[in-house]
């Protein structure tokens, strides 16, 4: 029975590792400036923890093979527990140290460093079960948000008051996040009802959108194309269908698009 268990354990380990090694199901392409660093960090962690996973399952299998139904004299681990404890602490300790140092830098570059001063500012409103995106328009100033004026029926998703608020009059509100490539983008995330989330797997970025808090998020897209923005925070019955698109355009295309929107 020991040998059967050991062989089963080795098969399970190898079969588990195979799709990872061959990238059978893997991350989608990366399209943000910080993304490759995230991927690198994930790869490093995968190698470190993969070695630990395979080694420890194989050792378990080996011991079960060797000592299953073993009847002879009991043997203790040579050298006692102290070297094993020290080995465990040092091995994991080193892994933790390296992961923490490198990982914190990656995290800091995404969430702690300030956004570029010239970043293109887009306002995001999330609601059950849609995203809306707002651009400041030719005046470069966003109109203020008035929760009491929010009305989906009339399309006033942000609660703007163009009658009394000059800055709000030229604000552009769209359903697709359209941005120029290679340009720093700064989002301000608002939610009017539940906690939602802004997740674009290709951007390697995820951020909750919390009612009552304006949360900044910045990134730079490095490729043109169209990708899904999905909600990852349970927000109600339509959660699974809450999505929008991220459209990354070349700079001239974006300028044309913006002009078109302002003209409407």
């Amino acid at each position, binding site marked *: 029975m020991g040998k059967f268990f050991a062989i089963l354990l080795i098969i399970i380990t190898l079969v588990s590792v195979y799709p990872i090694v061959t990238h059978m199901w893997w991350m989608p392409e990366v399209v943000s400036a910080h993304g490759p660093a995230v991927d690198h960090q994930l790869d490093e962690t995968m190698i470190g923890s993969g070695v630990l996973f395979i080694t420890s399952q194989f050792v378990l299998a080996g011991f079960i093979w060797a000592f299953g139904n073993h009847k002879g004299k009991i043997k203790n681990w040579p050298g006692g527990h102290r070297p094993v404890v020290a080995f465990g602490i040092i091995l994991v300790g080193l892994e933790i140290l390296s992961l923490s140092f490198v990982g914190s830098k990656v995290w800091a570059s995404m969430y702690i460093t300030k956004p570029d001063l010239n970043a293109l500012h887009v306002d995001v409103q999330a609601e059950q079960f849609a995203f809306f995106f707002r651009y400041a328009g030719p005046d470069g100033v966003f109109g203020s948000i008035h929760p009491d004026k929010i009305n989906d029926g009339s399309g006033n998703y942000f609660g703007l008051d163009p009658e009394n608020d000059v800055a709000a009059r030229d604000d552009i509100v769209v359903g697709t996040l359209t941005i120029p490539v290679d340009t720093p983008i700064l989002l301000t995330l608002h939610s009017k009802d539940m906690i939602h989330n802004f997740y674009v797997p290709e951007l390697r970025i995820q951020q909750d959108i919390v009612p009552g808090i304006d949360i900044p998020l910045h990134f730079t897209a490095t490729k043109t194309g169209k990708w899904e923005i999905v909600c990852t925070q349970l927000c109600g*019955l339509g959660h699974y269908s809450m999505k929008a698109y991220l459209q990354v355009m070349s700079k001239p295309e974006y300028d044309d698009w913006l002009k078109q929107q302002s003209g409407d």
Partner: protein
Amino acid sequence: MHDMSAEPAVHHLSPPQGFIRKHVFSLDHKVIGLQYYGLALAAVFIGMVLSWLMRLHLGWASLAIPGLQHLSPNGAPGGVITPEYYLSLMTMHGTIMVFFVLTNAPFAGFGNYFLPIQVGAEDMAFPRFNMMSFWVTFVAFLVLIAAFFVHDGPPISGWTSYATLSSVGGISGPGEAMGQNLWAVSIALFCVGQLLGSLNFIATTLDLRTKGMTLGRMPLSTWAWFITACIGLLAFADLLPATILLILDRTAGTSFFNPAGMVVSDTLLPHSGGSPLLWQHLFWFFGHPEVYIAIIPGFGIVSHILPAFTRKPLLGGMRVMIGCLIAAGFLSYMVWGHHMFVSGMNPFSAVLFSVPTLIITIPFTVATLMFLGSIYGANLRFTSASLFCLGFVSVFISGGISGFFLAQPSIDTYLHATYFVVAHFHFVMAVAAIFGIFAATYFWMPKMIGRMMNDTLGKLHFWLTFIGVYCIFMPMHYLGIAGNVRRYASFTDDYLVPLIPVHKFITIAALLTGAAQFIFLYNLIHTRWWGPLAPENPWEATSLEWSTTSPPPFDNFGGRHLIVHQGPYEYNAEGAAQDYVMQTDPDFVARS
């Protein structure tokens, strides 16, 4: 068998008379332990069927499940699960499993039964509290299950019940009116039950140990229950007020979790001044220690059972394992923020929470190495119990490894809320803890019901379950890496559609693995009435539960006051007459 007819019973309560006092409102910790176990057993099969329904829906979204429309005409018209009913099933699955299975069985169930016996006590310190603890928990369970039968169905906000989905009332979605109220009341009651239980465990461990039962001679299972009780006392004392605040927000118009300016369904809500993040802090300050409440008894159980089947003490002895468990328990209170890396809290704090989270892998790595080192050179006996112990080590390694990824905010920003997380916590706390429960069941059931379980069926149960859980949860890692978001009722998004075949595979594996659990149920029920009678010490083990009859009498030791002379794991001790020395053996002198 010891002669117990000559000595008078020393239990300060006389044995109960009548069915009600004996089997229903019993003060006997053994009956209460079995009641907790029975409740967990009912809960785990309900939870499992819920997971089947979820899995079926994920694989085949338009599938009509015969009969389901009778349970919920609104949630499953014609037997087809609606997206909101999927969320209801998910919420109930998580809540039932985490609270009523993973907390009840390994801690309240086995702990109640064996902690007093293992320390040589006749009962818990506060038998009436103990009884109250179970019955409050039972009512909590009924209240939760009642959510299936109220008009708007069970809540849809997940077992974490994040505000504001959970805190603004029925306007936020189906199940968020009466269903969510019932959830909150149920959890509050559950907290009361656990607080009473935890107090009892701590007092019993500290005050009721028999002569010679020093802390250093306490079995590791008792140590683990004691540590878990200390964690639970703090954790449930946090969740109780949190759920009360939630109930107030929902029913009394307060704004603890609700900020100003919320507009739901084009209605401006009157709340102001609250924060949805407050709920997350309060919840996870409970929630992370709760994970350890589920798994630390598993470590104690495996540490206790493995030596009986390796015929040697654990590598590093008691101290290393106790140290690991205490360290893990202590650190569990410093890491709650790792559930909230992308929640909108200050990004600096993510770094602060990440480091202790990674450090927590150290005690668990050391504990796992101690298990591995204990198998080396052993006379490993294969029984259903020992197989589940070995399986525990394997699945805990698999689940622990993925923690390295999620503990890092920079990777969590990609993997957060994907199936990678689902794979991680199912392996590390659910499957590992369930394996601990199975090991404990096969090991202790002869003592608890006085009959031996069928070992062949037990082993068949193990092989099917072991292969099954890997088929279910390993592919979830791949889904997560591919960006598959969790808590989605179906996959309409373009980028998720190619992953549906993986979901179908997982569903089939879940159905088969679930079906294998009926072998266990059959074995358990058959044993209860028709199994061969169990001897006093079938596993040639050493601790006090094996120094009394199977099952033990009302006062546990038939009027004897046991005196403890040995540590709990004197297996193959040098100079001993046989390969194990009972804790009560006065003659053997350990060489140290």
